[in-house]
């Protein structure tokens, strides 16, 4: 018998502990496939955030460092500056990156750090049980906004790509949705591009992935995809914001 579909080499054969239908799992898979495709498993260093994806600690077969909540881009900066020969990337949730870690992500992006940041935006604090995030949609329910997020007092959902694209240093700023196979394909190509940029010394790449959280959204897998189609993708526009070819600093 021949194997038609293999587990990516940088993923351990451990059971995933993500909830059924969670797109963190899809993101994990495509990142691992890109690492295989580039043949960079031995030089990859993965900086994990605090959030549901911290569970990656037990699923990845890469050099891994767990960071404090929101600080992954600073940790990655320290690593990359000392080991420019390695592929250093962060994976961060929206609470991690767009709330507590806003200073770290904006500053790393503005410095043009030669790292790749993959940002999984599910518009909720998943791990802590569904509290409102800066990215929670207006009207979307959360445990700290039980009647739905209101504009007054909480403002608008934060659009990270739109913020980062205003900086001159970033080489790639792109938002994709993991809702459909086409979106997944685009996300995979964007991650590939983000890693290549780093390997070629081009500088900072930012790939936002729209994801879900069926558990705290109180729906099932399909219901969460419906929600993404109807609401998330309407507010968070999926497109390439920046794609520059030149190396940063030249």
């Amino acid at each position, binding site marked *: 018998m021949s194997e038609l579909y293999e587990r990516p080499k940088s993923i351990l054969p451990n059971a995933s502990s993500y909830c059924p239908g969670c797109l963190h799992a899809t993101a994990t898979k495509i990142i691992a496939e890109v690492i295989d495709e580039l043949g960079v498993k*031995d*030089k990859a*260093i993965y*900086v994990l955030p605090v959030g549901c994806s*911290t569970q990656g*600690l037990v699923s*990845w*077969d*890469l*050099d*891994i*460092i*767990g*960071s*404090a909540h929101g*600080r992954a881009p*600073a*940790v*990655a*900066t*320290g*690593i*990359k*500056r*000392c*080991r420019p*020969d*390695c592929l250093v990337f962060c994976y961060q949730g929206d609470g991690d990156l767009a709330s507590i870690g806003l*200073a*770290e992500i904006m*500053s790393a992006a503005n410095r043009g750090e030669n790292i790749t940041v993959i940002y999984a935006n599910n518009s909720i604090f998943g791990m802590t049980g569904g509290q409102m995030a800066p990215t929670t949609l207006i009207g979307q329910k959360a445990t700290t906004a039980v009647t739905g997020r209101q504009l007054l007092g909480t403002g608008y959902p934060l659009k990270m790509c739109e913020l980062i694209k205003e900086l001159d240093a970033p080489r790639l700023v792109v938002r994709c949705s993991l809702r459909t196979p086409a979106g997944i394909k685009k996300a995979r190509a964007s991650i590939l591009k983000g890693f290549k940029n780093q390997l070629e010394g081009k500088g900072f790449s930012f790939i936002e992935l729209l994801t879900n959280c069926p558990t705290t959204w109180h729906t099932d897998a399909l219901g969460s995809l419906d929600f993404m189609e109807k609401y998330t993708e309407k507010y968070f526009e999926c497109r390439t914001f920046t794609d520059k070819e030149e190396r940063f600093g030249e």
Partner: protein
Amino acid sequence: MEKRFMKGCEALAEAAVRAGVRFFAGYPITPQNEIPEYMSRRLPEVGGVFVQGESEIASVNMVYGAAATGVRAMTSSSGPGISLKCEGISYLAAARIPALIVDVSRGGPGLGSIQPAQSDYLMATKALGHGGHRLMVFAPSTVQEIVDLTYSAHDFAERDRNPVMILIDGCLGAMMESVALPEMREPKPESQSGWTLGRREGETRGAHLISPIYEAGLEGLNRQFGERTARWQKEDVMVEELYLDDAEYVLTAYGMAARVARQVTEDLRREGYKVGLIRPITLFPFPKESFRKLVPGTVKGVIDIEMAIPGQMSEDVAASLPQGIPLYEYGHSGGVLLDDADTKAAVLDIISGNKEARA
């Protein structure tokens, strides 16, 4: 050995470079700006990296990442910034990453004062962040001692895979003295390669995981840390003792305050007073034995002298003193420096029985 006339902060930075430090990240704050300024010029000369972080939080996390690759890394700040670094220091301890943290202290609490003070003793020795971890804390009192302790700080950090702290105050940091500089040590990141991030070309090994999270096994780690603290207490205490064999009154002070206490001790000795001095060099582990061995009756009192009100180290002194030896406090804070003459007068006042012991 190379001799130079240097400021405390700059001597500290040069000693760190000579000890093999090749990564520095920090954020400006008085009175330690000379350290990042010096490092920004000096590190590129030796192939090292300087990053001005966007905050103390970012800086300590950059050190967390850099040190995780096996490079000797450090950061420095003063009280308000050390407060922010505490999160990162706790993570360094949990993830078992060696690093050097320097606190050049000023008056507190709050924004306090940029003037020198010893206001961070409690934070440094009891709780640099949440979780109950401890750091070895070194408190030099001369510029030469700053150099010597900085030069060996990473040896302790790497031995224990734990951050270490050097605590000085703004006065010592700005003071110029002549120093003998040790030789340049070439960094050896590969000496740490059993646990660090990033395979070298051709290196085949399993993946390394550096994690501040312990789903299981946290109690084991806590226990290990407790045992390590006990080992420090047995093997790593550094203290200077003067005239303890016949002292009736023992002064105790660290860092900058110890310079004044030493002067007063020598002056009073010359005048026939039987005084002695205990100068803790490691604030943690604290030199408990130096106090425990004092004999009630023979020693009529211990006088704690600090640039902090109320005294902070005095809590550890009190906890180590045998019953029957009263403890007195004298000090200034908030940027008011200690003065030889006033301190001597205060000590004489205590010796004459005009002052109440610490409650």
